[in-house]
């Protein structure tokens, strides 16, 4: 799919977004060059690439945490001017409020929206239940494992009714078993809620396992080099030949072979 193809039902539209940073030594770094991307509502998109390819920068621009040097991001047709509750970010380091319990962390968004106490309480209880942490509802973040913390971070985003979840290597700090479980839980939540997900990862297998569409990026300067739809049936079998074929071609692409534009 060519990046500039108009997608009528795009939830997110990234238009010629580039980002320059000034390094501490005064030189200018081109973190991202002219990225174009349209993301359909309800889709699961993985941004993949080596470090320095601008994938996290692009995600943070969509989140409104960074402003693009040129170009713009439209969310449901409106330009993104800053962070907002329609775009929930799940950080690799969780970003939970350490002084709030699991329940209070999940309730933070609904409370900030000014809902009534009873409503806030009901929403928090529902999402704490959904992530299977009802027994830990009154625990503080420092008492939880990494996997539990990341579940709370996901619940916190869902509890605000975010339509778009931005996930920055959310499972990168977790052990393999926990990561696998959370990947499945995330897919389950995504299927149930109709959420749109942009998921940054550097793990090829994770990208193919999760995404409808893998956007490959390359460093120096950071740019989009390929946009690959993943049409494997779900649930996906990581040991199937089709999965391995995709893994190989994506690995070849990311490890510097001539860019392969894969036709859908």
């Amino acid at each position: 799919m060519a990046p500039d193809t108009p997608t009528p039902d795009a939830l997110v539209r990234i238009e010629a977004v580039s980002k320059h940073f000034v390094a501490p030594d005064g030189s200018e770094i081109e973190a991202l060059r002219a990225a174009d991307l349209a993301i359909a509502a309800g889709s699961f998109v993985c941004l993949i690439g080596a470090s320095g390819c601008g994938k996290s920068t692009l995600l943070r621009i969509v989140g409104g945490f960074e402003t693009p040097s040129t170009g713009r991001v439209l969310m449901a047709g409106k330009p993104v001017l800053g962070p907002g509750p329609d775009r929930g970010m799940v950080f690799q380091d969780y970003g939970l409020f350490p002084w709030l319990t699991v329940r209070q962390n999940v309730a933070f968004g609904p409370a900030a929206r000014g809902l009534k106490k009873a409503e806030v309480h009901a929403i928090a209880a529902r999402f704490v239940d959904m992530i299977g942490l009802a027994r830990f509802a009154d625990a503080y973040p420092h008492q939880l494992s990494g996997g539990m913390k990341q579940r709370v971070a996901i619940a916190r985003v869902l509890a605000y009714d975010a339509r778009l979840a931005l996930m920055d290597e959310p499972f990168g700090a977790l052990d393999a078993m926990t990561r696998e479980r959370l990947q499945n839980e995330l897919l389950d939540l995504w299927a149930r809620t109709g959420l749109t997900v942009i998921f940054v990862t550097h793990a090829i297998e994770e990208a193919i396992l999760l995404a409808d569409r893998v956007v490959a990026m390359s460093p120096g300067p950071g740019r989009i080099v390929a946009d690959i739809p993943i049409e494997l049936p779900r649930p996906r079998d990581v040991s199937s030949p089709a999965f391995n074929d995709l893994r190989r071609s994506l690995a070849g692409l990311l490890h510097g072979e001539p860019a392969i534009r894969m036709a859908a």
Partner: protein
Amino acid sequence: MTAAWRQPLALIVPLLLLAGWWASTHNDPYGLIPPPGAVGTEMWDLAFGGINDDAFSGVLLRNLVASALRVYGGFALAAVLALPIGMMIGRIRIVRELLDPSFQLLRPVPVTAWLPLSMILFGLGPRSAFFLVALGAFYPILVNTIFGVRSVEPRLFEAAAMLGASRASMFPKVVLPAALPGMFTGLRLGLGFAWVVIVVGEMTGVSTGLGAMIMDGRQLSRTDVVICGMVTIGLAGFLSDIAVQALGRRLLRWSPQHGA
């Protein structure tokens, strides 16, 4: 830390010190330092009277209360000033540029060096002691509050903004709770320092308080009274610190450094 003093191991050093004190004083009736037993007797007399019937009999509680009122009063005044000023210096750039250099310049001046000036400014008497205590407690609270509000993780602002918190609500919802451990450390250090400073404050021109009692003891060569005063101040500061720590454990249950 609180668990440590309950352990029998912690008693070894105090018992050794006591034994050394006893061994070097118990058979020297004309020494300047009385043996532990004599100090114990004097402590009883200071607290309850009925043994010596002298000027020091039964005066301990009155002096302890006088000192404690000055300590907690001065400490409260310091907290009321240092917490908001520290928060403003930490978060508001213009206030930081206006005030921070002056405080940095004044901070190295020891509280004891203020004593003569404070006696001129506030007169001979308890008001001067009160001022010194407040001054001594002020800086630890100020410095730790500034540190607390400045070291909030940027990630938490991002998380709060993303969850719909307005700019105005960042202070009560993010900065204040995140800075609480720092402020609490400042309050604890400040209160500890207040107990140190009170003795200096009460040594000149004040007739009540543990510092005054120690000075009276010194002038009358009553070393037993001096030691009793030292022990009382030590215990009062120690118990006061335990109370503050217990409060911290309740308020900061979420913090791995403070929570039980």
